[in-house]
């Protein structure tokens, strides 16, 4: 199975063992929304964002409805969790668990990736799969997300689809 990761273009590293390809996105791209705030998320989805990475891991029914209507993908950026320490990190892990469960129960596609701004917060496929299991995503779904979903998002960002 071929795995793909999504990072910001400020990361120099081009390859990491285990990944078929690493897709790079710019900070100001309009294809993947990276941030928080209900209004900003809804605005991004309505204006062409294929994927949404909610950095405070907060989601509600309004956002879920928009994501379902526009068939967007919900991304879980693990670098946000790994940048924190102690209780902050534990709190984010709990929120990510709730987010993943809420999304999967509502049949929303999940993408798992590093979304790192620096090489220090990069992860191998094995690490991303194990981190997904920590937030109660099944291993089979994590592998599907790392391969099929990330490939589709990455190619959309590169303009290949």
């Amino acid at each position: 199975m071929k795995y793909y990761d999504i990072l910001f273009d400020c990361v120099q590293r081009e390859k990491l063992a285990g990944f078929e390809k690493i897709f790079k996105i710019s900070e100001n791209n309009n294809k993947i929304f990276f941030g928080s705030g209900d209004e900003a998320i809804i605005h991004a989805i309505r204006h062409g964002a294929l994927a949404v990475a909610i950095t405070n891991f907060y989601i509600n029914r309004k956002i879920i409805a928009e994501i379902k209507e526009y068939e967007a993908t919900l991304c879980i950026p693990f670098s946000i969790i790994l940048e924190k320490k102690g209780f902050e990190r534990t709190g984010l892990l709990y929120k990510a668990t709730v987010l993943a469960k809420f999304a999967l129960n509502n049949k929303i596609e999940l993408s798992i990736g590093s979304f790192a701004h620096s090489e220090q917060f990069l992860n191998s496929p094995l690490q991303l799969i194990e981190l997904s299991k920590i937030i109660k995503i099944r291993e089979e779904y994590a592998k599907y997300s790392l391969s099929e979903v990330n490939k589709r998002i990455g190619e959309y960002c590169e303009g290949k689809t």
Partner: protein
Amino acid sequence: MKVKHRYILVEASEELDKNFKDNLRRELILCIGSIDYHLVNPRLIGIDGKEFIIKCSLEGFGKLVVALSMIKNLNNRDIAFYTLKTSGTIKSLTSSG
């Protein structure tokens, strides 16, 4: 009954110094916790430049991989660990391809 193990090949983002083993052990106890540390039972097998092999119990494998993802600072130095390969034997881990 034989306890099953896993060997993990890990690449570090920085060169590893002579105190790496003790520093890593200290950080792993913080991440995994003193209760689960004995279940995971991590043992550093060998170091080669930026790469090292670590052995753990099969049941603690997932916790060790997550702990290695969470360690971002070792002895006041920024560092990252990337778990590249895993295997039941060292031979298949170090064989090419």
